[in-house]
Structures are given as structure tokens and as C-alpha cells.
């Protein structure tokens, strides 16, 4: 059903009796053309673009829990396309373009909010690194700006300029960056995919692969065997576990990343701000909560929760960056399982097992990638060849040495 101010008005008169499920609660069929494992943002977007751009209709998305229970439901919602390396930047810009028309495309308000992203810097060295990045963005045709301390102060006066251990010297600004309502992205893609006939199956955990002659021909699930010509994995933090069912080892470690939300307050922070002297980033949700996070806890974990030292580090940086948030209270903390790769960049590629495709390794940056990841993964599955914008995100890059390491920290996932 189509959503609009008009349908809302009509349903209000109708006491809202006519609303249909946002997506059907499908029961799995025995065979599909394509099965996507994982009902997160990426899996749902992939299914949607497979249907819309590649004309496939016999598609299922299998989700082990409730829709959106993974990282799409627990991220800090930052979207941006301000990457350094060409292998990444073109991809994230494709994503940004897709974000910009997303609501109209999906007929669902995911509250994409281009309020701007400000990355602070504190030294000449950091400034030069950001200049390199900002110029690289310009070469991609993407606007970027390098602000000095005064311009930053005008934009966000409540930053900790005074008494700073690492004084703010300026910032990298991307006006088109911002946030989106994370859950609604999942629901919107689910809604739009469902409208195109995609089966979205919740509470259906993939427990193994059906293989014939080395090829994957379907999956075993908690709800029985399901056959498919092609199977795509979009399971984020579970990539290694699912890949292991196909006897694959991936260049991935699963680590926990925490995020936090404060009690709701009146508008205080106009854009997304990240700290350059510590791990901290913050924005304010439309509900008024300050949504913020920091660094990984730093060890392998599937527990979906973290520990206090990280919380303390995050807020030591947070209070240094924005000392007036001190008397606001933390309402809730949670964790997500990050599929951290060895170079901090993702993988969208075929696997060595025929019929099995991999979209993973999104580390803590895959929310902004959602539309483009779906777009490129759909392309890969449908055409069996990488999309040009994701051509660098190959699985064999570690063997060939074509590393995509944005921060230069090396093959150590917890340092990205």
C-alpha cells in the first residue's frame, strides 16, 4: 500500500483500520532464484535492487531473528561520503546519491537528514591528512570543505575550545553528510521489496548450505531446506560463522562496538561531529537523544555488549570535545557485532564456492553503505561480475596486496 499524507488522512478518518502490514510475514517457499541471508539493511536493499534493477522476483530474504535486529538496528546512523581512497570514495558517493532519493524511491520516510558531518582536527598533520582527503573528494566531484577553528566555532559553538588538551584547529566538513532513521531504513527497504514480491522471512536461521558438486544450491534453515540458484550472504557480524558453514575462512574478526543514547533534550547539536583527538562521535536524534559512540572494545566478541573501560574512554573524549553535555544523562548503552576486516574496508565479491556470494566486512561503517551495498551486491549476484563502484572491494586483495587501508594501521582489525 502506498504511504502519503493523503493515505494518512484517509486512514485517520477510518480510525486506521485499513493499514496493511508494512511487509508480509512470508512463509518460505521450497525454491528461489536468489536467497539473501540476513534481514539487515544490506540484505533487504540487495533484494530490493535485485527485484527493481535486475528484474528478478523470486527472491527471499532470510532473517534469523526479527527484522532489523542486527547492526542496522544498533548503529549511530551516520551517513557520509568523505573517504580517502578511490576504491572506497566512489562507492560511498554512489551510496550518498541513493540516500538522497531514498524516501521517494521506497515510499517510506527514513528521515534521511543531510545536516552535515564535521570531523575535527587538532594538529597540522591531521589537517594535512584531511586536506588530502578533501581534495580527493573534490577529484571525485564531491563537495568538501576544510574549516579553520573560527569557522568551526561559528558552526558548533559548544565545542571544547577552552582548556583543551588537544586544541581544535579546524575541521573537515561535508554538508551532504548526516544521519538517517536506522530502523526505518530497514522497514522501508522491506516495504519496497515486499511490494515487488520479495519474500521476507523472519525467524528463519540459516544453519548450513546445500551443496551439489561443490556448488551451493540452497540453504538449510531452522525452517527447513530451501533451494536457490544463488545465495548471497549479508550477515554483517555473523559473516565468519555463516561462511564457516561453507568451509570458508574470511579475513574478518568479529568485535564489539558500543553505542549510547542520552535522555531526550531540546535541539543542541546541529550536525554530526567527530573528535580528532580521541574516539568520539555524536549527533542528536530527532527524538532529542544524543546518539554517540567511540572505539571498539577491541577484542573478538559475539556477545553484543561491551564493558566499562570503553564507556569511560568514550566519555572522556566526549566531555573534552563537548563539555556542556556533562549534566545530560546516559539513557542506554548497547553493542553490535562488527565484522572487522584486516584492512578496515569491506568485501563485495564472489566466494571460492560457486553460487555463493559475499557482502560483508563492513566494520563500523556499513550503515552509510546500505543503499550502495545493496545496489552493488545485487549487480554482482545478477551479473556475476563486480559493479565498477565496488571493484576494489575484492576478497583476494589480501593475496594480491591491493590493500584498502584508509588509516594505515595494518592488518589488525581493532586498530581500524
Amino acid at each position, binding site marked *: 500500500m502506498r504511504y502519503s499524507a493523503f493515505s494518512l488522512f484517509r486512514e485517520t478518518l477510518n480510525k486506521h483500520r485499513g493499514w496493511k502490514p508494512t511487509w508480509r510475514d512470508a512463509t518460505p517457499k521450497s525454491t528461489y532464484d536468489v536467497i539473501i541471508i540476513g534481514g539487515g539493511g544490506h540484505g533487504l536493499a540487495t533484494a530490493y535492487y535485485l527485484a527493481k534493477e535486475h528484474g528478478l522476483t523470486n527472491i527471499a530474504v532470510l532473517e534469523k531473528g526479527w527484522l532489523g535486529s542486527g547492526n542496522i538496528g544498533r548503529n549511530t546512523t551516520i551517513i557520509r561520503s568523505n573517504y580517502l581512497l578511490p576504491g572506497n570514495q566512489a562507492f560511498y558517493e554512489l551510496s550518498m546519491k541513493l540516500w538522497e532519493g531514498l524516501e521517494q524511491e521506497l515510499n517510506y520516510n527514513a528521515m534521511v537528514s543531510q545536516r552535515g558531518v564535521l570531523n575535527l582536527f587538532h594538529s597540522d598533520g591531521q589537517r594535512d591528512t584531511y586536506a588530502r582527503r578533501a581534495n580527493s573528494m573534490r577529484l571525485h566531484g564531491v563537495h568538501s570543505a576544510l574549516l579553520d577553528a573560527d569557522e568551526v566555532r561559528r558552526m558548533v559553538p559548544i565545542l571544547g575550545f577552552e582548556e583543551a588538551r588537544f586544541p581544535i584547529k579546524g575541521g573537515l566538513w561535508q554538508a551532504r553528510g548526516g544521519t538517517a532513521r536506522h530502523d526505518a531504513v530497514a522497514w522501508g527497504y522491506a516495504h519496497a521489496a515486499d511490494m515487488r514480491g520479495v519474500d521476507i522471512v523472519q525467524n528463519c536461521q540459516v544453519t548450513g548450505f546445500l551443496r551439489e558438486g561443490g556448488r551451493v544450491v540452497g540453504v538449510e534453515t531452522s525452517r527447513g531446506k530451501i533451494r536457490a540458484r544463488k545465495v548471497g550472504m549479508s550477515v554483517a557480524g555473523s559473516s565468519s560463522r555463516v561462511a564457516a558453514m561453507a568451509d570458508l575462512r574470511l*579475513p*574478518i574478526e568479529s568485535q564489539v562496538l558500543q553505542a549510547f543514547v542520552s535522555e531526550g533534550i531540546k535541539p543542541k547539536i546541529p550536525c554530526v561531529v567527530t573528535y580528532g583527538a580521541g574516539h568520539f562521535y555524536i549527533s542528536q536524534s530527532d527524538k532529542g537523544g544524543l546518539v554517540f559512540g567511540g572505539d571498539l572494545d577491541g577484542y*573478538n566478541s559475539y556477545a553484543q555488549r561491551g*564493558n566499562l573501560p570503553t564507556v569511560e574512554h568514550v566519555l572522556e573524549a566526549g566531555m573534552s570535545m563537548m563539555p556542556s553535555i556533562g549534566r545530560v544523562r546516559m539513557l542506554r548503552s548497547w553493542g553490535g557485532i562488527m565484522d572487522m576486516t584486516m584492512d578496515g574496508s569491506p568485501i563485495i565479491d564472489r566466494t571460492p564456492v560457486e553460487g555463493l556470494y559475499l557482502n560483508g566486512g563492513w566494520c563500523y561503517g556499513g550503515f552509510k553503505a546500505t543503499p550502495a551495498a545493496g545496489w552493488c551486491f545485487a549487480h554482482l549476484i545478477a551479473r556475476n561480475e563486480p559493479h565498477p563502484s565496488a571493484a576494489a572491494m575484492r576478497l583476494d586483495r589480501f593475496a594480491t596486496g591491493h590493500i584498502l587501508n584508509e588509516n594505515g594501521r595494518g592488518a589488525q582489525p581493532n586498530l581500524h
Partner: protein
Amino acid sequence: MRIDCPHCGSRDIQEFVYRGDASVSRPDPDGEDALKHFVDAVHLRTNPAGFHSEHWYHSGGCRSWVTVVRDTLTHEIESVGFANEEIDR
């Protein structure tokens, strides 16, 4: 989380730096297929959900490298020992 350092005793994880899977060892650089083995050792991980044997460095303490066997589902630590039992103490 606290790690029972075999030298120092029970310490907060803040004192430790994590490195990762302790089951991978440095391949023989002169062996056959050394390149492939190095690619795998440096990059591929079993990444189990459950017990994981991993290296931590007690940087804020005795500077030992220790091997911790820990359940990645519960964070429960089963054992801690020096990373290389050969090391002189």
C-alpha cells in the same frame, strides 16, 4: 573484564592490549608456498563463536604477552598463560 595475568594476578583489561588469534603462528619464510602461508597467517581468521585462544599484551603491567582462552559468546575466561611457555621467568 579482568585477566588473570600469570605474572601480576587479576588485572583490568584496560591494562592489556589485544592482538588476536593465538593459534596462528609465523610461517616458515623459506618454506614452500611461503607467500600463501603468510597471506593466510596475517589475514585469515577462524573467528569462532565460543572458545577463542588469543594474544594479549600486558602493556600496563609486566609487559608479558599472554594467551587467553576466552568464550567470545560470554566473555568468560577459561585460562590464561604466558604466550610462550619457553620464555624465561
